[in-house]
């Protein structure tokens, strides 16, 4: 292992590879921060350019894009409530309220420190356990995925800020939305009024509408209000100290992020939601979550950055992508004539070890760019509301168009913008809707797959060990707030 590391260090520390690494970080910052562009789109756009590149710089560039984009998606989420990628939606829950109080500098610095810590912890976990995680990734079949989705949905009680009824309404709305499209098992159409809906409502444009565009409407309503003066952006060393009180949250969220990331198909959004829910559940000041509690940002950011390394574990050990971006990375590896699979560590150890080194070298660069950039980015909040509203609206539309080069996505964004605005005015929090959009398909398709395998016997589905444990956990999460309330009385 040590020799492999030394060999990989030699491979990475060349001008070409370092250039690829730095440009990867910068490209990643851009695609991540642009709502609509995700790390997987950014990496995929680069694939044609990697034809002529050597394997190591190509792979290093793609990995650093993946890492940096996952962080930078939180920047617009905090500043203007426009998550750059789905996972950053959770960051917006507390990040944006902090920004509205004028604490955007503090929120940004905290988010980059938490991201860095999450990436570091999960990076170490990846180096130590990538090969062990192969069996963990394979242990998840339909029954287990179904149970994982139930755990996610059980967080509804925790995530709902105010009324439980309103949270359930939000959840139901989201679940209805995900039924649109082709039935995942039977293949028949459900509410496909136009052929563009065959694949269902596109997730990313819907999210942009729900968060960013609905925020634009709110901004227009409050156009005449005075802008909160920006409070002083803390220095780098102060940011280290700012993270100190949340040590436990960072470690816990990074572990959740890594392990959820390992499960193929689960990914950063689910990691962020679970980690946020757990942090809130354990907090003595539950009520402050959603109103600008820094711990919410820490929980979300360290988890979704940890999920990056998590998703790389099944890729390196089995050739199975843990996320959409990891799938593109596999495409990149195949172009280079490499076979990502169980023999990668044996046949091409330089690839996984170069990825490890790239993660650790890219990490400080990402953090430094983030810390220095924060001072610049907070200036966005100084822009008068009507102007920033116009900018956010056009960037949202551009982003949803860019997602698939089609105006259909822009329409989805517009419609969800209006829906999001109405829901906000009715005090329905977007968290349960995001929960349903992220988990709906996983829940339905996998339950039905598990039922087919089990000859329609639900008890057989539940009797799988991992499934049983996860379902028990879900029940516990669901009833614990109620028990807590009773105890308080």
């Amino acid at each position, binding site marked *: 292992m040590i020799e492999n590391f030394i060999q990989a260090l030699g491979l990475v520390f060349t001008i070409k590879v370092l250039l690829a690494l730095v440009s990867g970080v910068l490209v990643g910052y851009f695609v991540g921060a642009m709502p609509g562009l995700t790390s*997987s789109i950014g990496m995929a756009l680069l694939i044609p350019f990697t034809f002529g590149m050597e394997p190591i710089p190509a792979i290093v560039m793609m990995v650093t894009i993946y890492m940096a984009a996952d962080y930078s998606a939180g920047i617009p989420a905090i500043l203007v409530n426009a998550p750059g990628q789905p996972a950053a939606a959770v960051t917006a829950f507390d990040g944006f309220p902090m920004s509205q109080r004028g604490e955007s500098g503090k929120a940004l610095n905290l988010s980059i420190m938490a991201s860095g810590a999450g990436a570091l912890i999960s990076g170490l976990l990846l180096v130590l356990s990538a090969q062990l995680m192969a069996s963990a990734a394979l242990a998840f079949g339909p029954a287990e995925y179904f149970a994982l989705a139930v755990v996610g949905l059980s967080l509804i009680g925790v995530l709902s800020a105010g009324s439980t009824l309103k949270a359930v309404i939000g959840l139901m709305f989201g679940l209805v939305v995900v039924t649109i499209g082709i039935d995942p098992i039977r293949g028949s*159409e459900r509410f496909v009024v136009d052929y563009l809906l065959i694949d269902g409502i596109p997730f990313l444009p819907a999210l942009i509408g729900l968060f960013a565009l609905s925020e634009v409407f709110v901004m227009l309503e409050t156009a005449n209000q005075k802008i909160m003066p920006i409070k002083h952006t803390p220095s780098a060393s102060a940011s280290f100290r700012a993270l100190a009180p949340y040590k436990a949250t960072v470690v816990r969220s990074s572990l959740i992020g890594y392990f959820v990331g390992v499960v193929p198909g689960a990914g950063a959004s689910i990691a962020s939601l679970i980690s946020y829910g757990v942090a809130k559940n354990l907090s003595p000041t539950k009520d402050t979550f959603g109103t600008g509690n820094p711990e919410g940002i820490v929980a979300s950011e360290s988890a979704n950055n940890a999920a990056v390394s998590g998703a790389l574990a099944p890729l390196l050990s089995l050739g199975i992508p843990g996320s959409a971006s990891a799938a593109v990375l596999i495409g990149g590896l195949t172009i280079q004539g490499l076979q990502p*699979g169980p023999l990668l560590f044996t046949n091409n150890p330089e690839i996984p070890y170069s990825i490890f080194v790239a993660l650790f070298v890219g990490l400080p660069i990402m953090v430094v760019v983030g810390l220095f950039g924060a001072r610049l980015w907070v200036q966005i909040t100084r822009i008068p509301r009507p102007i920033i509203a116009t900018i956010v609206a056009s960037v949202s539309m551009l982003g949803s168009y860019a997602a698939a080069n089609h105006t259909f996505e822009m329409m989805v964004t517009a419609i969800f913008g209006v829906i999001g605005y109405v829901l906000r005015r009715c005090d329905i929090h977007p968290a349960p809707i995001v929960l349903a959009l992220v988990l709906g398909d996983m829940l339905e398709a996998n339950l039905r797959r598990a039922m087919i395998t089990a000859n329609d016997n639900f008890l057989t589905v539940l009797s799988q060990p991992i499934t049983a444990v996860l379902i028990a956990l879900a029940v516990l999460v669901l009833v614990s707030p109620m028990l807590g309330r009773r105890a308080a009385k």
Partner: protein
Amino acid sequence: MKNCKTAFATALLSLALPVSATAQAYPGGDIRYVLHVEPGGATDVMARRLAEQLQKSLNVNVIVENRSGGSGARQMAQLSRAQPDGLTIGSVTASHLGMFQQSGQFNIDSVEWACNLVLEPYLLAVRADSGIDSLDDLVEQAKAAPGSVSVAGFGEASGGHVAWLMFDEAAELEKGTINWVPYNSVGDATTATLGGHNTVAISYIGLVKQHVEAGTMKVIGIMSDTRSSIMPDVPTYAEAGFEVDTRWQQFRGIIVPENTPVEAQEALCAVVDEVLQTPELQAYISEADLVPGYMPPAQFTDFVKAQEEATKTWLTRLGQGQ
């Protein structure tokens, strides 16, 4: 003022260009290659490789555009709006045929089927420790305890599903003996089987090769006339005693807008055939474990019609069985 005149002249010229282009030999302009898949996947990578070679050979730009969504419907919409001049071409795989069954909007006649590029035979793979060593073992185990064995594959009424139904019939399995479990992709189905959540997966060589080499998976039969040179020990279905129509294979081809002249299609396909022979693409095809399967327009159209016919027949039988 001078700038204005230049701009005006350029604008006029640019309008005139397409007119003069039609007089030239094919292609006479840049080619737009519209893909129905997202960037980064196997179909995308192959198309980009092909575009690179076409560009070299034809001396025009070949611009690859990804129009994914709607299981190919979005790309079909794009193609049906394009000029039928042979300068707009599209990628196609068997998944289009599945989409035609679902969507009233498009069907096999909405485009011209220019040429096929490669084929990929289906195969059945199990976990190495499953105790199943042959197709006979699989059938025996399933018949001994109906419902205990499940097969994982991509989607409902997909190419893989029909391939499975063909085996199902050849093996004279009664309904409910082996359950079909549809996944979102062949890759997901293969992973589920590797994890022991399903007994057998209907998959491709490229997806199982690494696991076979690592000793965690075993291929028990390949749905093709001849054995694969990559896995020479794996018997074909026929060798194992199961007679199926081996023309049923996954394919990747090129489609063009409806009413594209046959001459343009043939000119395009002649170049495609040529570049498929280049060392670069030959190397890619063998590395990706694909089977060369070039077909010119007439042959490809017949092939697709036969596939469509079979899909419909099997779908009806499936519908009656439920």
